[in-house]
Protein backbone atom coordinates (compact mmCIF):
# COMPACT_ATOMS: atom_id res chain seq x y z
CA UNK A 1 0.00 0.00 0.00
CA UNK A 2 1.49 3.33 -1.09
CA UNK A 3 -0.45 5.42 1.39
CA UNK A 4 1.14 6.85 4.50
CA UNK A 5 -0.35 8.18 7.73
CA UNK A 6 -1.47 11.77 8.00
CA UNK A 7 -1.75 12.71 11.69
CA UNK A 8 -4.36 15.22 12.90
CA UNK A 9 -4.51 15.00 16.67
CA UNK A 10 -3.41 13.21 19.83
CA UNK A 11 -5.95 12.00 22.35
CA UNK A 12 -6.36 9.38 25.03
CA UNK A 13 -6.60 5.87 23.66
CA UNK A 14 -9.74 5.30 25.73
CA UNK A 15 -11.60 8.03 23.84
CA UNK A 16 -13.87 6.45 21.22
CA UNK A 17 -13.52 7.92 17.75
CA UNK A 18 -17.10 7.63 16.63
CA UNK A 19 -19.67 9.90 15.10
CA UNK A 20 -17.24 12.37 13.56
CA UNK A 21 -18.55 14.37 10.63
CA UNK A 22 -16.81 13.15 7.45
CA UNK A 23 -14.93 10.65 9.58
CA UNK A 24 -15.84 7.82 7.25
CA UNK A 25 -15.08 9.82 4.10
CA UNK A 26 -11.60 10.62 5.37
CA UNK A 27 -11.10 7.06 6.64
CA UNK A 28 -10.16 8.37 10.07
CA UNK A 29 -8.79 5.83 12.50
CA UNK A 30 -6.51 5.72 15.52
CA UNK A 31 -3.09 4.33 16.34
CA UNK A 32 -2.60 3.73 20.05
CA UNK A 33 0.40 3.34 22.29
CA UNK A 34 -0.44 2.74 25.93
CA UNK A 35 -2.81 5.52 27.04
CA UNK A 36 -2.28 7.73 24.01
CA UNK A 37 -3.71 7.54 20.51
CA UNK A 38 -3.11 9.45 17.29
CA UNK A 39 -5.96 10.26 14.94
CA UNK A 40 -4.84 9.46 11.41
CA UNK A 41 -6.05 9.00 7.88
CA UNK A 42 -4.33 7.42 4.88
CA UNK A 43 -2.70 9.86 2.50
CA UNK A 44 -0.70 9.56 -0.67
CA UNK A 45 2.37 11.56 0.28
CA UNK A 46 3.43 11.76 -3.34
CA UNK A 47 0.42 13.81 -4.31
CA UNK A 48 -0.16 15.69 -1.05
CA UNK A 49 -0.24 19.44 -1.68
CA UNK A 50 -0.75 22.06 1.02
CA UNK A 51 -3.81 23.74 -0.44
CA UNK A 52 -6.28 25.98 1.33
CA UNK A 53 -8.74 23.09 1.30
CA UNK A 54 -6.21 20.82 3.01
CA UNK A 55 -5.54 23.42 5.69
CA UNK A 56 -9.24 23.87 6.35
CA UNK A 57 -9.77 20.10 6.40
CA UNK A 58 -7.00 19.67 8.95
CA UNK A 59 -8.56 22.24 11.23
CA UNK A 60 -12.04 20.78 10.75
CA UNK A 61 -10.89 17.31 11.79
CA UNK A 62 -8.99 18.62 14.81
CA UNK A 63 -12.06 20.54 15.98
CA UNK A 64 -14.32 17.52 15.40
CA UNK A 65 -12.01 15.27 17.42
CA UNK A 66 -12.04 17.79 20.26
CA UNK A 67 -15.83 17.59 20.27
CA UNK A 68 -15.44 13.92 21.19
CA UNK A 69 -12.89 14.41 23.94
CA UNK A 70 -9.68 16.10 25.05
CA UNK A 71 -7.14 16.27 22.26
CA UNK A 72 -3.98 18.04 21.16
CA UNK A 73 -3.74 19.53 17.67
CA UNK A 74 -0.89 18.19 15.55
CA UNK A 75 0.98 20.46 13.19
CA UNK A 76 -0.37 20.61 9.64
CA UNK A 77 1.41 18.37 7.17
CA UNK A 78 2.59 15.71 9.61
CA UNK A 79 2.88 12.53 7.56
CA UNK A 80 4.56 9.40 8.89
CA UNK A 81 5.50 6.33 6.83
CA UNK A 82 3.17 3.87 8.53
CA UNK A 83 1.24 3.07 11.69
CA UNK A 84 4.33 1.65 13.32
CA UNK A 85 6.09 4.98 12.95
CA UNK A 86 3.09 6.74 14.49
CA UNK A 87 3.16 4.40 17.49
CA UNK A 88 6.91 4.93 17.78
CA UNK A 89 6.42 8.71 17.84
CA UNK A 90 3.82 8.33 20.58
CA UNK A 91 6.21 6.18 22.56
CA UNK A 92 9.15 8.53 22.04
CA UNK A 93 7.22 11.62 23.16
CA UNK A 94 4.81 9.92 25.55
CA UNK A 95 5.51 11.86 28.73
CA UNK A 96 5.44 15.28 27.08
CA UNK A 97 2.32 14.46 25.09
CA UNK A 98 0.50 13.10 28.12
CA UNK A 99 1.46 16.13 30.17
CA UNK A 100 0.31 18.47 27.39
CA UNK A 101 -2.92 16.53 27.03
CA UNK A 102 -3.65 16.95 30.73
CA UNK A 103 -2.70 20.63 30.61
CA UNK A 104 -4.26 21.63 27.29
CA UNK A 105 -6.60 18.90 26.09
CA UNK A 106 -9.79 20.77 26.95
CA UNK A 107 -8.43 24.33 26.68
CA UNK A 108 -8.81 26.78 23.82
CA UNK A 109 -6.85 29.73 22.57
CA UNK A 110 -8.03 33.14 21.38
CA UNK A 111 -5.99 35.13 18.89
CA UNK A 112 -5.69 38.89 18.95
CA UNK A 113 -4.22 40.98 16.17
CA UNK A 114 -3.72 44.73 16.39
CA UNK A 115 -3.39 46.48 13.05
CA UNK A 116 -2.06 49.99 12.90
CA UNK A 117 -0.75 52.55 10.52
CA UNK A 118 2.84 52.52 11.70
CA UNK A 119 4.12 55.92 12.80
CA UNK A 120 6.22 57.02 9.84
CA UNK A 121 7.63 60.26 11.15
CA UNK A 122 11.12 60.32 9.71
CA UNK A 123 13.97 60.45 12.15
CA UNK A 124 16.14 63.51 11.84
CA UNK A 125 18.67 62.90 9.11
CA UNK A 126 21.67 65.18 9.38
CA UNK A 127 23.16 63.66 6.23
CA UNK A 128 22.47 66.65 4.04
CA UNK A 129 24.03 69.20 6.36
CA UNK A 130 27.00 67.20 7.55
CA UNK A 131 29.08 67.88 4.46
CA UNK A 132 28.80 71.64 4.81
CA UNK A 133 30.25 71.52 8.29
CA UNK A 134 33.56 70.25 7.01
CA UNK A 135 36.17 72.80 6.04
CA UNK A 136 37.16 70.48 3.23
CA UNK A 137 34.33 68.55 1.59
CA UNK A 138 34.64 64.82 1.78
CA UNK A 139 35.29 62.91 -1.39
CA UNK A 140 32.10 61.89 -3.14
CA UNK A 141 32.50 58.25 -2.29
CA UNK A 142 32.79 59.06 1.41
CA UNK A 143 29.77 61.38 1.26
CA UNK A 144 27.74 58.58 -0.26
CA UNK A 145 28.94 56.18 2.42
CA UNK A 146 28.11 58.62 5.17
CA UNK A 147 24.66 59.23 3.76
CA UNK A 148 24.08 55.49 3.58
CA UNK A 149 25.12 54.93 7.18
CA UNK A 150 23.09 57.87 8.45
CA UNK A 151 20.11 56.56 6.52
CA UNK A 152 20.54 53.17 8.14
CA UNK A 153 20.81 54.82 11.54
CA UNK A 154 17.61 56.79 10.95
CA UNK A 155 15.81 53.62 9.90
CA UNK A 156 17.09 51.83 12.99
CA UNK A 157 15.90 54.65 15.23
CA UNK A 158 12.51 54.69 13.55
CA UNK A 159 12.09 50.94 14.01
CA UNK A 160 13.11 51.22 17.66
CA UNK A 161 10.56 53.98 18.23
CA UNK A 162 7.83 51.91 16.57
CA UNK A 163 8.77 48.84 18.57
CA UNK A 164 8.64 50.82 21.81
CA UNK A 165 5.16 52.10 20.97
CA UNK A 166 3.99 48.62 20.02
CA UNK A 167 5.44 47.20 23.25
CA UNK A 168 3.53 49.78 25.28
CA UNK A 169 0.38 48.89 23.38
CA UNK A 170 0.95 45.17 24.06
CA UNK A 171 1.44 45.87 27.75
CA UNK A 172 -1.81 47.86 27.86
CA UNK A 173 -3.66 44.99 26.17
CA UNK A 174 -2.11 42.39 28.39
CA UNK A 175 -2.95 44.27 31.58
CA UNK A 176 -6.62 43.99 30.65
CA UNK A 177 -6.70 40.48 29.14
CA UNK A 178 -4.16 38.46 31.11
CA UNK A 179 -6.31 38.29 34.28
CA UNK A 180 -8.89 36.38 32.21
CA UNK A 181 -6.43 33.87 30.73
CA UNK A 182 -4.38 30.91 31.89
CA UNK A 183 -1.37 31.76 29.77
CA UNK A 184 -0.42 33.92 26.81
CA UNK A 185 2.13 34.54 24.08
CA UNK A 186 2.83 38.03 22.80
CA UNK A 187 4.61 39.05 19.64
CA UNK A 188 5.63 42.69 19.33
CA UNK A 189 5.63 44.23 15.86
CA UNK A 190 5.95 40.99 13.87
CA UNK A 191 5.45 43.09 10.75
CA UNK A 192 5.30 46.85 10.19
CA UNK A 193 1.51 46.94 9.91
CA UNK A 194 0.95 44.54 12.78
CA UNK A 195 1.64 46.21 16.09
CA UNK A 196 0.84 43.18 18.21
CA UNK A 197 -0.15 39.59 17.75
CA UNK A 198 -1.16 37.80 20.90
CA UNK A 199 -2.65 34.47 21.79
CA UNK A 200 -4.37 33.68 25.08
CA UNK A 201 -5.05 30.27 26.59
CA UNK A 202 -8.48 29.93 28.17
CA UNK A 203 -10.82 27.53 29.83
CA UNK A 204 -13.88 27.44 27.54
CA UNK A 205 -16.18 28.81 30.27
CA UNK A 206 -13.88 31.84 30.44
CA UNK A 207 -14.42 32.88 26.83
CA UNK A 208 -17.33 35.19 27.61
CA UNK A 209 -15.48 37.14 30.31
CA UNK A 210 -12.43 37.36 28.05
CA UNK A 211 -14.54 38.71 25.17
CA UNK A 212 -16.15 41.28 27.46
CA UNK A 213 -12.72 42.42 28.60
CA UNK A 214 -11.72 42.70 24.97
CA UNK A 215 -14.72 44.93 24.24
CA UNK A 216 -13.69 47.22 27.09
CA UNK A 217 -10.23 47.30 25.60
CA UNK A 218 -11.51 48.44 22.21
CA UNK A 219 -13.40 51.23 23.87
CA UNK A 220 -10.38 52.33 25.84
CA UNK A 221 -7.98 52.31 22.89
CA UNK A 222 -10.02 53.20 19.82
CA UNK A 223 -7.18 54.41 17.61
CA UNK A 224 -6.10 50.95 16.43
CA UNK A 225 -7.97 48.18 14.64
CA UNK A 226 -8.43 44.93 16.49
CA UNK A 227 -9.18 41.44 15.30
CA UNK A 228 -10.20 38.81 17.82
CA UNK A 229 -10.45 35.23 16.61
CA UNK A 230 -11.26 31.94 18.21
CA UNK A 231 -11.81 29.80 20.08
CA UNK A 232 -9.17 27.64 18.40
CA UNK A 233 -7.52 24.41 19.52
CA UNK A 234 -4.47 25.34 21.63
CA UNK A 235 -1.91 25.08 18.82
CA UNK A 236 0.28 27.82 20.25
CA UNK A 237 0.77 26.28 23.68
CA UNK A 238 1.89 22.72 23.02
CA UNK A 239 5.40 21.89 24.12
CA UNK A 240 8.15 22.27 21.55
CA UNK A 241 9.23 18.77 20.60
CA UNK A 242 11.07 19.58 17.42
CA UNK A 243 13.44 22.24 16.22
CA UNK A 244 12.50 25.85 16.69
CA UNK A 245 10.77 26.57 13.42
CA UNK A 246 11.12 30.06 12.13
CA UNK A 247 7.65 31.55 11.98
CA UNK A 248 6.20 30.94 8.56
CA UNK A 249 3.58 33.59 9.11
CA UNK A 250 6.25 36.05 10.19
CA UNK A 251 8.01 35.43 6.90
CA UNK A 252 4.74 35.77 5.02
CA UNK A 253 3.94 39.03 6.71
CA UNK A 254 7.37 40.48 6.06
CA UNK A 255 7.28 39.36 2.44
CA UNK A 256 3.81 40.77 1.94
CA UNK A 257 4.72 44.01 3.66
CA UNK A 258 7.73 44.30 1.45
CA UNK A 259 5.66 43.91 -1.67
CA UNK A 260 2.93 46.24 -0.45
CA UNK A 261 5.25 49.02 0.60
CA UNK A 262 7.56 48.94 -2.40
CA UNK A 263 6.27 52.15 -4.01
CA UNK A 264 6.65 54.12 -0.78
CA UNK A 265 10.15 52.85 -0.18
CA UNK A 266 11.32 53.48 -3.69
CA UNK A 267 10.15 57.08 -3.38
CA UNK A 268 12.54 57.76 -0.54
CA UNK A 269 15.76 59.53 -1.38
Amino acid at each position, binding site marked *: VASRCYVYAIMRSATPLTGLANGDDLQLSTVAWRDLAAVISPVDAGTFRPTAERVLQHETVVEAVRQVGSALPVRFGTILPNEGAVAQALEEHHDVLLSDLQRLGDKVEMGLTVLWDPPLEPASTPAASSDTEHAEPLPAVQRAGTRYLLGRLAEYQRENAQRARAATMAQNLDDVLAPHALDRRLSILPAPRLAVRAVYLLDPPGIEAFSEAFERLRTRY*PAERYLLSGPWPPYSFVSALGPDVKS*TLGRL*LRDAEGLLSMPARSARP
Partner: protein
Amino acid sequence: VSAGAPLDAKQVTLLEILDRVIDHGVYLSGDITISVADVDLIYLGLRVMLTSVERADELRGGVIPTALQEATSG
Protein backbone atom coordinates in the same frame (compact mmCIF):
# COMPACT_ATOMS: atom_id res chain seq x y z
CA VAL B 1 -8.13 32.40 -3.11
CA SER B 2 -7.59 35.09 -5.64
CA ALA B 3 -5.20 37.92 -4.98
CA GLY B 4 -7.58 40.30 -6.71
CA ALA B 5 -10.76 39.22 -4.98
CA PRO B 6 -12.31 41.26 -2.20
CA LEU B 7 -11.46 40.18 1.28
CA ASP B 8 -13.99 37.83 2.72
CA ALA B 9 -14.35 36.04 5.98
CA LYS B 10 -13.01 32.81 4.53
CA GLN B 11 -9.73 34.43 3.60
CA VAL B 12 -9.23 35.96 7.01
CA THR B 13 -10.20 32.71 8.68
CA LEU B 14 -7.69 30.88 6.51
CA LEU B 15 -4.99 33.33 7.49
CA GLU B 16 -5.73 32.78 11.16
CA ILE B 17 -5.68 29.02 10.64
CA LEU B 18 -2.41 29.21 8.71
CA ASP B 19 -0.85 31.09 11.57
CA ARG B 20 -1.63 28.19 13.84
CA VAL B 21 -1.42 24.97 11.92
CA ILE B 22 1.81 25.65 10.04
CA ASP B 23 4.03 26.82 12.85
CA HIS B 24 2.33 25.41 15.90
CA GLY B 25 0.76 22.24 17.14
CA VAL B 26 2.37 18.96 18.14
CA TYR B 27 5.55 18.26 16.21
CA LEU B 28 5.89 14.50 15.95
CA SER B 29 8.66 13.94 13.50
CA GLY B 30 11.46 15.52 11.57
CA ASP B 31 9.93 13.90 8.53
CA ILE B 32 7.29 16.56 8.39
CA THR B 33 5.96 17.35 4.95
CA ILE B 34 5.98 21.07 5.49
CA SER B 35 9.69 21.26 4.81
CA VAL B 36 9.02 19.91 1.36
CA ALA B 37 5.93 22.00 0.80
CA ASP B 38 7.30 25.24 2.18
CA VAL B 39 7.25 27.05 -1.12
CA ASP B 40 3.61 26.19 -1.72
CA LEU B 41 2.63 27.39 1.72
CA ILE B 42 4.50 30.64 1.28
CA TYR B 43 2.68 31.13 -2.00
CA LEU B 44 -0.69 30.32 -0.48
CA GLY B 45 -0.07 32.55 2.51
CA LEU B 46 1.16 35.44 0.41
CA ARG B 47 -1.95 35.43 -1.70
CA VAL B 48 -4.07 35.50 1.44
CA MET B 49 -1.95 38.23 2.94
CA LEU B 50 -2.07 40.43 -0.11
CA THR B 51 -5.83 40.48 0.00
CA SER B 52 -6.26 40.70 3.73
CA VAL B 53 -3.79 43.06 5.35
CA GLU B 54 -4.33 45.85 2.87
CA ARG B 55 -8.08 45.49 2.83
CA ALA B 56 -8.85 44.83 6.45
CA ASP B 57 -11.20 47.80 6.51
CA GLU B 58 -13.53 45.89 4.24
CA LEU B 59 -14.20 43.54 7.11
CA ARG B 60 -16.61 46.05 8.49
CA GLY B 61 -20.09 44.91 7.65
CA GLY B 62 -18.87 41.65 6.16
CA VAL B 63 -20.04 38.19 6.99
CA ILE B 64 -17.95 36.97 9.89
CA PRO B 65 -17.83 33.31 10.82
CA THR B 66 -18.41 32.18 14.35
CA ALA B 67 -14.73 31.63 15.04
CA LEU B 68 -13.76 35.09 13.88
CA GLN B 69 -15.25 38.03 15.67
CA GLU B 70 -14.47 41.04 13.59
CA ALA B 71 -13.60 43.77 15.96
CA THR B 72 -12.48 46.63 13.82
CA SER B 73 -13.05 49.93 15.47
CA GLY B 74 -13.09 53.41 14.04
